[in-house]
């Protein structure tokens, strides 16, 4: 069986290796260049101690971000990579056999269908896992300088999704979904379309609806006037909502935070911030930065569990195909 699996998929394996090499050819030089600039601008010191966040640091960060933020377009590519693996590794695995009728050849040799499915799924799963881990580590390393206190939070939508362990979960899920879709639809095109729709649907659905609720979000309130409580507590965190609420807790201006130094007055001569009414305060709903890894594990766990479930269903389905 291993021999068959290798003989059948060696071309695909080669293309995957070439793809990973091409990715490395992009990630390694740009990653090194970013790190150089990052060090040259003296940003490591700035990032280390947020309380000494000076104007110079601010400028340096802006300079850095201006220069490299266009690279984030590549991040979109990294987001669809797991889907590609699902489409080109997962979906054809069973479908191509059925489409060409070769399942009737291979399932009537001396090896049971269950064993065929187990060996195939396990080897493709192992290769996928290895590729996904390599890719996940590489991209995590690559985008590290881009998520800095002054730029993008690593908890942000694009960034959370392309680093750490979640890409591994996504990739396993995409492949398992492709395999399962292939056992349901005997033609390649519908199977690929179903994989695409299922993957995009679940990814977007979970990101928008479920991810903010993995843990209860924290609330923080600050007075409008004064130095403010914890200015950087949410650095690197994930702000779900913020705004200004009045004394009775009603939102009076959403999406805004105001911080007025004591004694500063507006054009109308009133104390800055008084227009929001007496007792108004800054309000913020957020997940603190240290929840990054728990969230990563929760999300990767959900997708890996779904992948396992789909593969079990696929093995069950394979027994029904003739």
């Amino acid at each position, binding site marked *: *069986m291993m*021999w068959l699996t290798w003989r059948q998929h060696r071309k695909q394996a080669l293309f995957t290796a070439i793809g990973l090499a091409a990715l490395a050819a992009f990630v390694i030089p740009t990653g090194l260049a970013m790190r150089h600039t990052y060090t040259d601008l003296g940003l490591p010191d700035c990032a280390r101690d947020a309380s000494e966040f000076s104007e110079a640091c601010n400028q340096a960060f802006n300079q850095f971000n201006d220069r490299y933020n266009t690279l984030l377009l590549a991040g979109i590519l990294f987001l669809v990579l797991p889907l590609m693996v699902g489409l080109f590794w997962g979906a054809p695995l069973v479908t191509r056999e059925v489409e060409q009728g*070769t399942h*009737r*050849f291979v*399932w009537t*040799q001396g090896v049971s269908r269950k*064993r065929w499915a187990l060996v195939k799924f396990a080897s493709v799963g192992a290769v996928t896992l290895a590729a996904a881990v390599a890719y996940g580590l590489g991209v995590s390393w690559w985008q590290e300088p881009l998520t800095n206190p002054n730029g993008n939070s690593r908890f942000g939508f694009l960034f959370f999704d392309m680093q750490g362990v979640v890409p591994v979960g996504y990739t396993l899920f995409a492949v398992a979904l492709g395999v399962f879709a292939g056992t349901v639809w005997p033609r390649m095109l519908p199977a690929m379309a179903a994989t695409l729709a299922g993957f995009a649907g679940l990814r977007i659905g979970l990101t928008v609806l479920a991810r903010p609720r993995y843990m209860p979000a924290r609330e923080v309130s600050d007075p409008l006037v004064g130095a403010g409580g914890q200015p950087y507590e949410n650095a690197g965190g994930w702000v779900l909502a913020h705004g200004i609420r009045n004394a009775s807790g009603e939102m009076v201006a959403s999406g805004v935070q105001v911080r007025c130094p004591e004694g500063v007055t507006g054009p109308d001569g009133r104390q800055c911030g008084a227009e929001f009414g007496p007792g108004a305060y800054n309000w913020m709903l957020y997940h603190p930065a240290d929840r990054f890894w728990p969230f990563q594990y929760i999300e990767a766990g959900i997708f890996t569990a779904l992948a396992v479930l789909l593969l079990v269903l696929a093995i069950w389905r394979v027994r*029904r195909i003739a």
Partner: protein
Amino acid sequence: MEIVLETDRLGKRYGRNWALRDCSLRLPAGRVAALVGPNGAGKSTLLHMAVGLLRPDSGSVRVFDQPPYGHPAILEDIGFVAQDTPLYRDFTAEDLITLGGKLNRRWDASVARARLAQLGIPPRKPVGKLSGGQRAQVALALALAKRPRLLLLDEPVASLDPLARREFMQSLMGSVAESGTTVLLSSHILGDLERVCDYLIVLHSAEVKLVGPVEDLVDGHRRLVGPRHDGGPIAGVESIVKASHTDRQSTLLVRAGQPVDDRLWTVHEVTLEDIILAYLAEGSANASYDTWGVPA
């Protein structure tokens, strides 16, 4: 007499349509059996259930006294060539022989090599680039290398030209004659069967119309020509399979258990092909007038 394949009221349904229904038959060991019927009669369904690809929806099928579905151990004893002889098109014949060795516990690679060498099939060319006849030969060689006790072939010659068809049948017969393998092959091409088969199963519209050894069937059927027949009994005739009439004359194909001794009728012997055609014509459906919405 050892029974290799036995079905009892076997049925398979796709949605609301029965692909095969109430199929009961027994195939004795050592026979070369033809499974005949028009396209869509249920031939492939029957073979797929015999090789365990499909699970029966009703009744039972037993091969070597075991139900094949879910019993992959039986596969060792069955050689199966599916319709259109599917093979991995980017594999060479050599690769496929290696593959067979990896997937089967009993595997005689020399059988396959000798056959393919004799037929002049290139070992290192992807089988997708071979002609249809050559590919069918590769598929047959792989099935024979398992040294099967039962060989199931689904329309093995359907896509071949007459010359390749004859060669295929000859080489098939050559190899099973030596080993005593039981063969069940489906076909809708009648001419090939008469020469090689000694057992016949006729399927039509998902039902078994006729089963038996070829010689008994040929002996048991006669064509009668005589005056226009009104449907009354004729001495020695069990049943009328097919009747065609002109104004004054009737031609009947009948099943006759004993010699027909009636001076009104001229009795002719029949060929296997006559019998098959008679049974298939009997079942032709004209129910589709309704579905097309045209008068019959």
